[in-house]
């Protein structure tokens, strides 16, 4: 298939940036979206042009590195997948595809489609852990039984890959889904309960400091999340926060 691509190009963080139009031809429907980008980049290299920078690594939907905003949605129109798992069969011959970086004040553009998501790292450093030393002398793993229900819920929250699609899809650029997934994972486990109050307060404070917007419960994040992290986590974080504050 032949496609018209409108892609955000921006030389560096200070550059203003603009949309640039490219044409690609003979794209196979079996290609992944990023392979289509590879083809485009190879053609740019052949023409002595600077290829388009975009983040990607594992290309199997788990590392959370890829981050494109495609036709107005993070990770494109398909559901439950990351950009690297999006395939060209989702598009039709002759389509025009808009490709932009994830947008948020807290995710400044580094170059072209690459954004800086280290705000997420700082939020986790504010409390996204259990304070236990790696001595190997902790108690036996089976010493504290954990109900299967809670273990499964904790796992569902922990499945977050930290890609930032929640922020990108949210009209408010809110990071609540991401932060709540981290808070929930630990809040649901007995090991995590000891520090639960400080954790939620510190992580939320850091989230606010980074300049993310406020949640208005539109639910866009849940729809666009490649790992289908549930809004229940946000409700849980709200509860945890209230418990910690009152």
């Amino acid at each position, binding site marked *: 298939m032949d496609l018209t691509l409108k892609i955000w190009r921006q030389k560096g963080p200070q550059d203003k940036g603009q949309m640039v139009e490219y044409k690609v031809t003979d794209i196979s*429907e079996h290609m992944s979206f990023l392979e289509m980008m590879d083809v485009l980049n190879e053609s740019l290299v052949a023409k002595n042009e600077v290829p388009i920078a975009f983040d990607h690594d594992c290309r*199997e939907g*788990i590392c959370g590195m890829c981050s494109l905003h495609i036709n107005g949605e993070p990770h494109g129109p398909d559901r439950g997948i990351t950009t690297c798992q999006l395939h060209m069969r989702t598009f039709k011959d002759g389509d025009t595809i808009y490709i932009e970086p994830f947008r948020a004040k807290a995710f400044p553009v*580094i170059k072209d489609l690459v954004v800086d998501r280290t705000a997420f790292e700082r939020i986790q450093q504010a409390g996204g852990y259990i304070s*236990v030393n790696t001595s*190997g002398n902790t*108690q036996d793993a089976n010493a504290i*039984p954990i109900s299967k229900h809670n273990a499964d819920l904790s796992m569902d929250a922990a499945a977050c890959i930290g890609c930032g699609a929640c922020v990108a899809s949210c009209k408010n650029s809110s990071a609540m889904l991401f932060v709540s997934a981290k808070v929930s994972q630990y809040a649901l486990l007995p*090991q995590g309960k000891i520090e639960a109050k400080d954790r939620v307060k510190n992580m939320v404070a850091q989230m606010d400091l980074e300049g993310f917007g406020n949640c208005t419960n539109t639910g866009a994040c849940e729809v666009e999340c490649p790992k289908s992290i549930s809004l229940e986590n946000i409700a849980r974080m709200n509860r945890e926060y209230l418990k910690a504050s009152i």
Partner: protein
Amino acid sequence: MTTLNSRVPEGPIKDKWTTYKDKINLVNPANKRNIDIIVVGTGLAGGSAAATLAELGYNVKAFAYQDSPRRAHSIAAQGGINASKNYMGDGDSNYRLFYDTVKGGDYRSREANVHRLAEVSGNIIDQCVAQGVPFARDYGGLLDNRSFGGVLVSRTFYAKGQTGQQLLLGAYSAMNRQIARGKIEMFNRHEMLDVVKIDGKARGIIARNLVTGELERHSAHAVVIATGGYGNVYFLSTNAMGSNVTASWKIHKRGAFFANPCFTQIHPTCIPRSGDYQSKLTLMSESLRNDGRIWVPAKLEDAKAIQEGKLKPTAIPEEDRDYYLERRYPAFGNLVPRDVASRAAKERCDAGYGVNATGEAVYLDFAAAIHRYGSEQAKIHGIKNPSEEKIIELGEGIIEAKYGNLFQMYEKIVDENPYKTPMMIYPATHYTMGGVWVDYNLMTTVPGLYCIGEANFSDHGANRLGASALMQGLADGYFVLPYTIGDYLADDIRTGKISTDSPEFDEVEKSVKDQLEFFVNNEGTHSVDYYHKKLGLIMWNKVGMSRNEKGLKEAIKEIQEIREDFWKNVKVPGSLNELNPELEKAGRVADFLELGELFAKDALDREESCGGHFREEHVTEDGEAKRDDKNYAYVAAWEYTGKPSEAILHKEQLEFKDIELKTRSYK
């Protein structure tokens, strides 16, 4: 000539590690504050090491080329992590885990290391649970285990199909705690481009800030390399796009021996290539082989028709299908180890029986399992004379419950419904058992330079068992290196801060800079990927699943030619001082082009078939791998002397005192 000293402690194997730990030199807490350690790579091994070293009190600088440690490719491991907890009461023990690992590795690993691995495996699970890793649990609230290939017990702990992700997030959370305390200084989007030695000891690295392009000098009292495997030498592999050999190769060029490069694991169940644009291969969990039956058409004309798209697999009658694993290995059938299954698939496809347009795929068919489960369910639910549709509906329900997410992933990629038509699979490079040679302390042949996780030549011998990579990475990082490194650093408590303002740093930085400048200034004709793909093709065809002398010699020559061409005609657009992915790739491919040759040389040198290394000249009468314990029970550690072709071989003889050497048989 340097002689290899593995520094394996004396004494009975059961007590070696305990006794050794009791006697090892330690650094007192006040002095740890004055000691810096660089950790390159933040996957399971690097992440856990960085966290633990920082906890102990050392000043750690950690480096990752991704934008977060959490994105290291350990995250992609699906199945699980082994530990000899014996929670299932099925007779598991440290010895059994030790035995299984040595046997699974086809007797090419160091006994003492593997036993230590088994000993600490239980601690890993305790540690991870304490950190909040949400392992799967049963209804009683206790940890659940599943079984994996090549062993007789259930010892694999798992977190859905995302065990690697959860363990990495656990290690990363431990890192975060230390980053918040200021004990780890994290350098995201930084790539180590060389190591700096002062007076023969590793004392720092040169790293490139991938965002600004700046070269940075970082000094430390010890350097730990934890940068994973080199599977991307094949271009197509299940590794991440950025996975590379650069750190390992650069330290090799500065004196660290590189061991057993030819030991590479080809995983049998990956989604096949669909065209030349393919950028990477996706693994489907090995667990699928529990229920899927592998076959190709028995008639060549059927295979041709399928390749041309004229025939559907479901139209081929039962008698015209060749279930070649069940035919060749009646005892293990579809559950033979990874290396055996991979080679058998290649053999059929090479003979022309492949089942997709590229001719490189075999079927993994769930129809029989669906039917079996369906009939079972009908009985359970008391349905008398169920219709064929009902049976299939019930059976598909069970298959969906077991493998639903994998089937969904397959359908997203291939656009075929695997419930209705057989899946297509083909082997792909997955893990490299070979790597930088290390002693019992995990130190390379360069003092103060350590190598852990997949990057070292590891505990897996010539073949790795499922769910053992995660175990080794975390064992090295959490429980081995943090102790053994103290033995070396105890002598460094008076050294003080190491200056980066020295001729040694100048010299290394200059060589790094020269190479980068060459790339951006070279007016070449071909992209980096062009060379990488060419290299990958040679590696796959001649140094892949099955190797012979002629092919290996050709490969060595061809790789040399490509390398020569690369250094003349490679084209790298963009400039030095910016985010420049093409430039990053150029440096990595330059190193792959050298490693590839050593890889082939090692394969040529090892005149036996063992584990992932299969030499066509060394087979039994019925075509199975034939090991040569008399002449090749050694680790091949290569010393760099200027060119891969002139590398010098050092042998570390492997002694098997606690395990009897036996031929693996799966018939």
